[in-house]
């Protein structure tokens, strides 16, 4: 059983006005098989947490620790983190010119699994996963994210989640910009990964809508770079009706 442990994590970025602290002491533990929802207003630092775990060079960890099954994630390169079992479904995945999805997915699977999947099995696996996510077959020959609609990008991220079967998956606003049908398809994909019991999921979202399809075990409210409150699914219901006002100290009452 895998465990992701984040301890007193402080993260800074270089901004115009100098160094700015975005994460101000995050503590979070996710076990495989659990689903945690991380909810918070825009600008609270949710995505920064996701990218810091994945190792994006823009974010500097000034103190604290991240471990996966006791291994120091901060010592690993970006590719090594993925190989160790971390996965980040991005909100705005970039276009990569010249690289077809089929070649990208197979190279990625090779990196994660440590050996190239057998061609016949791989084609079958890809075909099945694409059909379940209602992805058009022509998609495999297109370049990575090039000309993809918002919905196609999200499906593509979840396709990768299913094919790579990580130990820990961080899904950064995977629900944003999706219509109801697409949200349902994407949620089903996430639930298939959850059902394996082998993957821990950290679902980052601004809205509670996706939580009707992907039911969390734990809900965390993220404000000002740290977790301000934690509870069960009922906490999401409370945010649904009351919003984040109660967690925004000055602005809400001023």
């Amino acid at each position, binding site marked *: 059983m895998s465990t992701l442990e984040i301890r007193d994590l402080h993260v800074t970025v270089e901004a115009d006005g100098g160094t700015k602290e975005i994460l101000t002491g995050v503590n979070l533990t996710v076990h495989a098989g659990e689903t945690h929802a991380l909810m918070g207003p825009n600008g609270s630092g949710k995505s920064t947490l996701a990218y810091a775990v*994945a*190792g*994006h*060079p823009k974010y500097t960890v000034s103190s604290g620790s991240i471990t996966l099954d006791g291994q120091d994630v901060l010592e690993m*390169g*970006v*590719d090594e*983190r*993925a*190989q160790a079992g971390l996965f*980040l479904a*991005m909100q705005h*995945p*970039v*276009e*990569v*010119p*010249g*690289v*077809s999805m*089929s*070649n*990208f997915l*197979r*190279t*990625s699977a*090779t*990196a*994660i699994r*440590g*050996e*190239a999947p057998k*061609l*016949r099995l791989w*084609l079958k696996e*890809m*075909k099945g996963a*694409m*059909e379940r996510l209602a992805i*058009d*077959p*022509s998609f*495999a*020959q297109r*370049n*990575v994210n090039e000309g993809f609609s918002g919905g196609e990008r999200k499906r593509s991220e979840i396709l*990768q989640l299913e094919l*790579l079967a990580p130990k820990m998956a961080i899904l950064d606003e995977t629900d944003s910009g999706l219509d109801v049908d697409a949200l349902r398809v994407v949620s089903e994909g996430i639930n298939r990964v959850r059902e394996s019991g082998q993957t821990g999921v950290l679902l980052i979202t601004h809205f509670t809508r996706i939580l009707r399809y992907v039911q969390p075990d734990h809900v965390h409210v993220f404000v000002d770079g740290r977790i301000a409150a934690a509870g069960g699914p009922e906490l999401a219901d409370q945010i649904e009706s009351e919003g984040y006002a109660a967690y925004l100290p000055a602005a809400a009452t001023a």
Partner: protein
Amino acid sequence: MSAIEEREVSLTPASDLLPRSTSRDLAQFPLPNGREEVWRFTPLTAFARVLADEATVAPLSWTATMPEGVSLEEVPVGDPALADLPYPVDRPAALAQAHARHALRLSVPAEAELAEPVVVRLTGNGDLAHGQLVVELGAHARATVVLQHEGVADYVEHTSVLVGDGAALELVHVQTWQDAAVHAGQVAIRLGRDARIRSTQVSLGGAAIRLVETVEYAGPGGDAELIGVYFADAGQHIEHRLFVDHAVPSCRSNVLYKGALQGESAHTVWVGDVLIRAAATGTDTYELNRNLVLTEGARADSVPNLEIETGQIEGAGHASATGRFDDEQLFYLMSRGVPQDVARRLVVRGFFADVIERIGVPSVEAQLLAAVDAELGEIDPTYDFTDLDALEAGLEAIGAGAGEHRA
């Protein structure tokens, strides 16, 4: 500051860029000063030796592998067989015609169909060399010809490619020079009635390369497919210029050039001039240039230039784009477990795949893939997929299956 400089607009009409020269007189091509439209991208100091009016010091050596039925011979300057060659369009081409000690003439007789490619290896001997080559296919002949440049030289070239009526030529012009080589010149293609050429330029090695490829049509029905692959490293200058002169009706030209750049001051130039004259009704032309900038500090210039003097054409178009392989793309691929060197190779191989497939000479395709790989360094064999074709075929099968499923 952006790593990319790109120019998509040229203010000079194609007809003015390469004036029709009507003599081989060197005096009509004075030493450029760099302000001329056709020289403004070129680092003249790097090309000083090949622009100088000096005699050949060390001619290129050549060896050839040839199938039956082909003749390859050194023809003396002044031989009547050389009288009607295309005129030079710039100073290096004129210098090559003026100073070459003889012409190397490859001749494929009418109606001969060669089963194997002709491969001519031209090797530099470390000094100034002028070369005049003639590749001539008789009517309805079919041949594949590879001209490969190796070693070190300051090489000045004029190559005439004469494709007879109804003949078809696959020409591959490869620059795999060693690092210090400089190469400038012209490949002048003349197509007979209903003649076809697929001409591929491959520029990988050398310090500085500047090649002009010209196409003229001697009769209707001519078809020119012009392909280019280039890869510039730090400090390297690679310049490819095309001038397709549609002066007769019902001819076609299709241009696809792709270049990658990596390293400080790597510089590539692609200029594609297509002129459709008033008489050239029914012309069909398209040109495309794509560049991929892999690192900071490299610069790709790209100038498509189409001038149309008649409305009665089948089609005419061009496109040019320069993309960057940037840190966000690298992060994305690495976040899926792909190591950095593999990510870079994935991008470059994918970028070149379609153009390499179009060359149509398997031995050259394999050599080119290997050369592109060599530009990128060693790779972990785990990722060295050899069955990409099978993958593509399998994917098409998936597409067909899903199509039936939906129907």
